[in-house]
């Protein structure tokens, strides 16, 4: 069985992070309390280590940008499915389904490319670099080390299909060209079907309707993970979604990731050059 490539950045466990953070905060408070006749930068102070804040680029967001961004999402999802098939995590009985999902996303990407071209843009045929770095690679690494990679891969697939559907739902309203708007809505519906089908095929009637629909909490499975459902709300949500995957630590906690529809920091602007 092949493996997903390792994550590039160094690893610091949450427990270590708390310890380091606690010491840093204590020292910072001590220094602040002793400070007198302070000079220098008046910008808000920063405690601990965090990447420097960068402003999103000041580029135009037009139909072509939204269509290129939608394309990038399709290619990112395709790449996940292809790597999943290559990894051997996918059960042979699910090969046909996964292959069909790849075909569906490729067909969407092809149509999005044609629409981009029609809007005077340059079709984007690569994955979304921002999404790859901040979501897909970390999640795949967590799945790789999970106690149940197949379970986590299914959860990731459901979350990605929902994210893609939400993105197209948003773009259907924001796009201006009628053909692009209609296709975005068709794709939002198709990918909603795909998300729902993954759950329905795996869980059957137990996974049809989430108690969230009734305003109740989501029950957990024997591993302590929230159950997944085909219907999680009465209206299509475009809000942030949480994905929990990976191995449990000594406290039974697993890594959590937030999925958000693309925004200014993850758009594929017309000025960006292909990354593939």
């Amino acid at each position, binding site marked *: 069985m092949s493996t997903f490539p390792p994550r590039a950045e160094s690893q610091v466990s949450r427990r270590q992070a708390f310890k380091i953070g606690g010491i840093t905060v204590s020292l910072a408070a001590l220094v602040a309390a002793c400070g007198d006749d302070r000079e220098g930068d008046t910008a808000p102070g920063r405690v601990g280590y965090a990447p420097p804040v960068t402003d999103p680029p000041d580029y135009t967001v037009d139909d072509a940008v939204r269509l290129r961004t939608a394309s990038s999402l399709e290619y990112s999802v395709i790449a996940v499915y292809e790597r999943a098939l290559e990894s051997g995590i996918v059960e042979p009985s699910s090969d046909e389904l996964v292959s069909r999902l790849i075909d569906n996303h490729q067909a969407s990407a092809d149509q999005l490319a044609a629409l981009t071209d029609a809007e005077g843009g340059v079709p984007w045929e690569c994955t979304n670099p921002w999404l790859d770095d901040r979501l897909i690679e970390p999640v795949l690494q967590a799945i790789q080390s999970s106690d149940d990679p197949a379970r986590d891969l299914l959860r990731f697939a459901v979350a990605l299909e929902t994210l893609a559907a939400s993105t197209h*739902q948003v773009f259907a309203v924001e*796009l201006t060209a009628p053909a692009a708007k209609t296709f975005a809505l068709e794709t939002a519906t198709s990918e909603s079907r795909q998300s729902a089908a993954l759950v329905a095929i795996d869980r059957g*009637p137990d996974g*049809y309707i989430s108690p969230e629909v009734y305003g109740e909490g989501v029950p957990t499975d024997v591993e302590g993970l929230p159950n997944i459902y085909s219907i999680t709300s009465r209206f299509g949500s475009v809000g942030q979604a949480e994905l929990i995957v990976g191995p449990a630590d000594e406290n039974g906690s697993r890594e959590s990731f937030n999925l958000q529809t693309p925004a200014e920091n993850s758009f594929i602007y017309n000025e960006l050059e292909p990354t593939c």
Partner: protein
Amino acid sequence: MDLVSAEPATSRRSLIGALGAAGLASAAALAVARPASAAPYSPTEPDKAVLEQALQLELAAKLLYRDAVEAGLTDAALEVAQVFGDNHEAYADQFAAITGISADTYNETFYDELKDEFATSDAAQFAQAAWELENNFAATYTELFTGFESVESQTVVASIVVLNGRMATVLADLAGVSDQLNLVFDPPTEIVTLTEGAGS
């Protein structure tokens, strides 16, 4: 239509009966791209005319699911019928909220056309009838989508269409055909006629 043997179809009824002259004129005018920032936020009068018909269709769907519940469905089929009926009532209420139109009239013609198919305690028969309804609603709203002038109309309709797709998928599984991927992902659809008589 036989759920098991159905082939993807493209037959769609004309929208002429659905929208009427005023609606068609509005839809034609809106076939031209409009920057989202230039679009009005709240539903315009042409939007309201179409949304009122959509509201009546949603109430008819709610009644159809109610009939299925009362016909004696059990277990998962019963829960599906109850929740999906409530969903359609919520969509009618949402259309009422954004248009100011009372949600007290249903599309009687549409209801009469389908009531016998929904009034069943047979889960598979119910699932097939409801699967067709959800797929047809999704196709109808998608067809109408670019005709809506306002951001709010489009936002609400988009949030409903994706649920039509999810509900159809659940119903395909309930009918036992979720292994037929063409039916699940590329189902046959027919545009629903919106205006043909009303009941209350």
